[in-house]
């Protein structure tokens, strides 16, 4: 099932103007091609530059906003095609993919936060924005609002599934503060994945999308 979910405004930091972005469900071949042909060369160039100065540790990758550079979007799209548990989304603006996200739902995808423990949630499995929109990776990131649009999409999916907006995710260290301080998600600490796990309650979700 695939199609455009709507057109939403992003802010172009270079001009200060709004730009229309189209939100798609699901990730299509052209989005994967953009990742391979437009995103990855930027990641690879920065990684090569960093490697020329020494080993690229997790901390260095985080410092340069590159921790997801190795994610295999093409393989994930192929593996998960047709699986009802998975949904995927892409944001396009100016004819180019600006953001990508995979979500998961299912009988085993349950909340951990005390007030909603064991209730169904939407899990954000992977979410990323194009490298030219990232602070610390490029001098002047272009679009603002892609992360919020994708998070709002996951919340909307949760409402659509009758999960009351509840979502959960594991954050890369470079993202902790955004989820906790900007999005208002509950930080449930580092779990057995060695990553920090965040959850959004119904109240937090309603506050986020208002």
């Amino acid at each position, binding site marked *: 099932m695939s199609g455009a979910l709507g057109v*939403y405004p992003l802010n172009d930091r270079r001009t200060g103007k709004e730009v229309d972005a189209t939100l798609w469900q699901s990730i299509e071949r052209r989005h994967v091609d953009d990742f391979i042909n437009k995103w990855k060369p930027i990641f690879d160039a920065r990684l090569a530059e960093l490697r020329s100065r020494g080993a690229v540790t997790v901390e260095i990758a985080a410092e340069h906003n590159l921790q997801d550079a190795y994610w295999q979007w093409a393989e994930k799209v192929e593996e998960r095609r047709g699986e009802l548990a998975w949904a995927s989304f892409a944001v396009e603006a100016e004819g180019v993919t600006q953001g990508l996200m995979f979500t998961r739902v299912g009988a085993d995808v349950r909340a951990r936060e005390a007030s909603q423990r064991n209730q169904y949630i939407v899990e954000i*499995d*992977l979410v990323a924005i194009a490298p030219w929109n990232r602070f610390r990776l490029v001098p002047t990131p272009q679009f603002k609002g892609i992360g919020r*649009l994708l998070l709002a999409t996951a919340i909307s999916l949760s409402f659509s*599934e009758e999960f009351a907006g509840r979502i959960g995710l594991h954050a890369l260290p*470079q*993202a902790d503060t955004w989820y906790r301080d900007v999005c208002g998600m509950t930080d449930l600490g580092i779990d057995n994945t060695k*990553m920090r796990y965040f959850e959004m309650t119904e109240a937090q979700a309603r506050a986020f999308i208002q």
Partner: protein
Amino acid sequence: MTFAFQEGISPLIPLVIPMIEKRTMTLNLSAHEMDVVERLADEKGLSKTALVRQALRLYQSISSRLDNGEKVFVEHPTTKEKAELMVLS
């Protein structure tokens, strides 16, 4: 696993995004089957539609694993006795 967004929340997008429109079907169930659907939906806090959708995902997931040659077991909580879960083939 998710990625960082080094930005504040844009005020541009206050939204609940409509998901792709769903199709409607009529499902004929016996009274007993309907009772079970209603009870499970009530227990899970879901509508009957949402319950059936969750069940369909689970059924697909298990079928897919079995099709790939995997086995699915359920384990007794105390005796740890395992029973292989079978689904329609």
